[in-house]
């Protein structure tokens, strides 16, 4: 795991080494162990290394035998052992044991198609000197980040936007369309980012850059098959065995490392399964890490303790308070590089700090199971709404809405008539493709009321979610709404929030690499072929995974009600140091200077929180979103130079 940055001059002019040094310094947190540079023929590559595989021999940039290819690579190729053997059989000679070199030789063998053979999580750039061409790629699901821009006849790229901003001549301006996307979908939709003219390479895409220009191409997308009907109970066991075998292999290859591998243990089904598999297939005593909350509403430590006892791991936890969340939130936003509507990334930031203190660089986690195997409440919500829609006059069917969000007291207490209005089933024909996500997106988009008139005018009228619509595959309309919901979650929220703001960015802030067995592309593709009834049986989520997990994990965890990972929200800013910076950033004067939000509307929202009358999700998302946006503006627009210290951050 590392940080990469580089530049390609379209006119072939040499790349100044000091510009590369300035960029890579901003990524020191991603790769504290070593830095390396390579420049020739109008290209410059820089690398910050976190040593995990081949500690002595894996320095980068790495060249091939005749130095005609050079690579910088952030990530891991988990099937590198098998690929290396195949390449050796074909006559390739290796000078290191590193997975990085495998990509180089595979590129020699397969060209740009090499990415189709990789099983892993990556963002890399290969300079092909003979073709005078730069080839960049990002993994299928977007575990590792990659951003780029084109400025002054140059293509500039980096693992994080702050590296690009460190290059002279790159301007820093908020892109209000990116802002609008976060305040609708909870994430940006690539290539849009929060910054004008800074682009994100979408997951499953590659880019080639040469004197002729930039070409972005997809190489993978998640494709579902048509519903294959109800599965006979006799066949369920076969599916369960196949899934378990895939998960075992996906976990085993994710233990390939020359440093010890730990595991996150949330107390939920997914991370307990991955921890159980790690434990089963490793000889070393396993270290596990978790977040506990002072506030019982969010705390899962009882289940974590059950899992630790059952799996006999050496466990450590952080206890997280709302004040701590408020304290570290500015640093969290420095790393997420986009606003968030939830504070949930902050405890993950604190957790990776604990992992780093314990001397660990790698953790296996359960991320991805909810998207791939049907765990999220939004899937349950979609099923219930569709069931109700088939008989709209039914009195009984909407009562199932009470089954949603049992852990949310406010939602449970609301009057039925209002619950029915919120989870509405009368959806315009034009919006049917988004049936599953409409309640969430329409609620979130209400937050536009906090934008200034200038920003709202620039964003323009509601466009019917056209950006997302334009990214849907042709076959999307043939899928049922459960699979459509899965696609939307996996395509957009997973890379745009879960794996980035709550994943890579807050883990790599402390040089910690996450590995995700559920996001092995073989597991994802297998799950996409599964009938929906094996993902959610009636309203029993992750049904097939639970079948696999029986006996592997404690019964209490297997049978528990799913509790999504959540953290104290806007209340985190109402006390101690957070209140101080919030009041400064949200003062009428500062808001007017920055021009993004309407200071009167923000003032009324703050007043609600001061009075203690803000209880709804919209108010909470609003305040967290506004504070995080203002922190972003403060750190990346107004005061970026002050963060460009010799030590990076």
């Amino acid at each position, binding site marked *: 795991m590392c940080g990469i940055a580089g530049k390609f001059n379209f006119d072939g002019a040499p790349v100044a080494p000091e510009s590369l040094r300035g960029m890579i310094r901003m990524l020191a947190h991603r790769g504290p162990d070593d830095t390396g540079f390579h420049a020739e023929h109008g290209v410059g590559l820089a690398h910050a290394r976190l040593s995990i595989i081949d500690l002595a021999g894996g320095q980068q940039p790495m060249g091939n035998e005749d130095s005609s290819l050079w690579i910088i690579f952030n990530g891991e190729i988990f099937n590198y052992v098998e690929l290396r053997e195949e390449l050796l059989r074909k006559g390739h000679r290796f000078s290191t044991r590193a997975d990085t070199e495998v990509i180089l030789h595979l590129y020699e063998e397969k060209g740009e198609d090499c990415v189709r053979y990789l099983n892993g999580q990556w963002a890399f750039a290969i300079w092909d000197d003979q073709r005078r061409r730069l080839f960049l790629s990002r993994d299928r699901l977007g575990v590792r980040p990659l951003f780029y821009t084109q400025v002054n006849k140059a293509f500039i790229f980096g693992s994080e936007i702050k590296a690009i901003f460190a290059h002279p001549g790159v301007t820093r301006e908020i892109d209000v369309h990116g802002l609008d996307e976060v305040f609708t979908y909870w994430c940006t939709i690539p290539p849009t980012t929060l910054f004008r003219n800074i682009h994100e390479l979408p997951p499953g895409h590659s880019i080639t850059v040469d004197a002729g220009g930039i070409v972005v191409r997809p190489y993978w997308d998640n494709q579902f098959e048509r519903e294959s009907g109800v599965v006979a109970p006799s066949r369920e066991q076969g599916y369960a065995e196949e899934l378990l075998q895939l998960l075992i292999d996906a976990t085993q290859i994710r233990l390939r490392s020359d440093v010890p591998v730990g595991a996150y243990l949330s107390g939920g089904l997914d991370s307990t399964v991955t921890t159980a598999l790690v434990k089963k297939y490793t000889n070393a005593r396993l270290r596990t890490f978790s977040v506990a909350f002072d506030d019982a*509403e969010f705390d899962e430590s009882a289940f974590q303790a059950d899992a630790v006892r059952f799996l006999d791991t050496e466990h450590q936890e952080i206890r997280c308070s709302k004040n701590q969340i408020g304290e570290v939130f500015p640093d969290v936003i420095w790393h997420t590089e986009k606003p968030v509507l*939830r504070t*949930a990334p902050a405890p993950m930031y604190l957790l990776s700090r604990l992992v780093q203190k314990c001397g660990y660089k790698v953790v296996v986690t359960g991320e991805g199971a*909810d998207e791939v195997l049907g765990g*999220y*409440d*939004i899937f349950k*919500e979609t099923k219930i709404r569709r069931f109700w829609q088939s008989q709209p006059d039914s009195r009984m069917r909407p009562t199932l809405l009470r089954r*949603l*969000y049992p852990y*949310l*007291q*406010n*939602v449970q*207490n*609301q*009057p039925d*008539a*209002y*619950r029915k*209005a*919120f*989870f509405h089933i009368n959806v315009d024909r034009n919006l049917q493709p988004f049936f599953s996500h409409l309640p*969430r997106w*329409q*609620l979130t988009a*209400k937050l536009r*009321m*906090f934008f200034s008139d200038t920003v709202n005018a620039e964003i323009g009228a509601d466009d019917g979610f056209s950006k997302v619509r334009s990214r849907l595959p042709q076959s999307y309309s043939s899928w049922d709404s459960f699979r459509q919901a899965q696609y939307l*979650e996996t395509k957009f*929220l997973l890379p745009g929030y*879960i794996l980035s703001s709550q994943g890579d960015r807050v883990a790599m802030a402390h040089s910690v690499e996450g590995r995700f067995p559920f996001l092995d592309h073989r597991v994802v593709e297998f799950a996409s072929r599964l009938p929906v009834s094996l993902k959610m049986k009636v309203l029993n989520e992750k049904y097939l995974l639970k079948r696999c997990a029986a006996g592997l994990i404690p019964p209490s965890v297997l049978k528990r009600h799913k509790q*999504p*990972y*959540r953290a*104290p*929200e*806007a*209340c985190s800013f109402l006390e101690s140091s957070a209140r101080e910076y919030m009041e400064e950033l949200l003062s009428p004067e500062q808001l007017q200077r920055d021009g993004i939000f*309407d200071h*009167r*509307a*923000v003032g*009324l*929202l703050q007043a*609600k929180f001061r*009075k*203690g*009358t*803000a*209880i*709804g*999700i*919209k108010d*909470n*998302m609003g305040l967290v979103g506004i504070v995080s946006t203002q922190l972003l503006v403060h750190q990346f627009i107004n005061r970026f130079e002050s963060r460009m210290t010799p030590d990076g951050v």
Partner: protein
Amino acid sequence: MVFKDELRQFVTDNFMFGKPCEGFADDDSFIERGIIDSTAVMELIAFLEARYRIKLQDQELIPDNFDSINKLARFVANRLEPNHTAELDAGRVLLGPTSFQLAGTDGPDT
């Protein structure tokens, strides 16, 4: 009615944050115009109970009573004693505290 202005002000400040929807009228449905979301109605109930010292029954918590400024005003007027309404109209009494407390910060999550 004084309290109709007060209700409109409460809805505008707390659910529209001082930026009323274009052409927002006293008969407009809160639900249809997306002004009140699934939990905001509880905020409204808490306000009514605290401000006007009335206790709402479960069966009263329906859109027919709450879904527009006019419906709200009618509902409050019916629940208040006639003499209280008259005094309120005349601005002679202040009913209940103007601030109220609700606990919890919830919402669906992934």
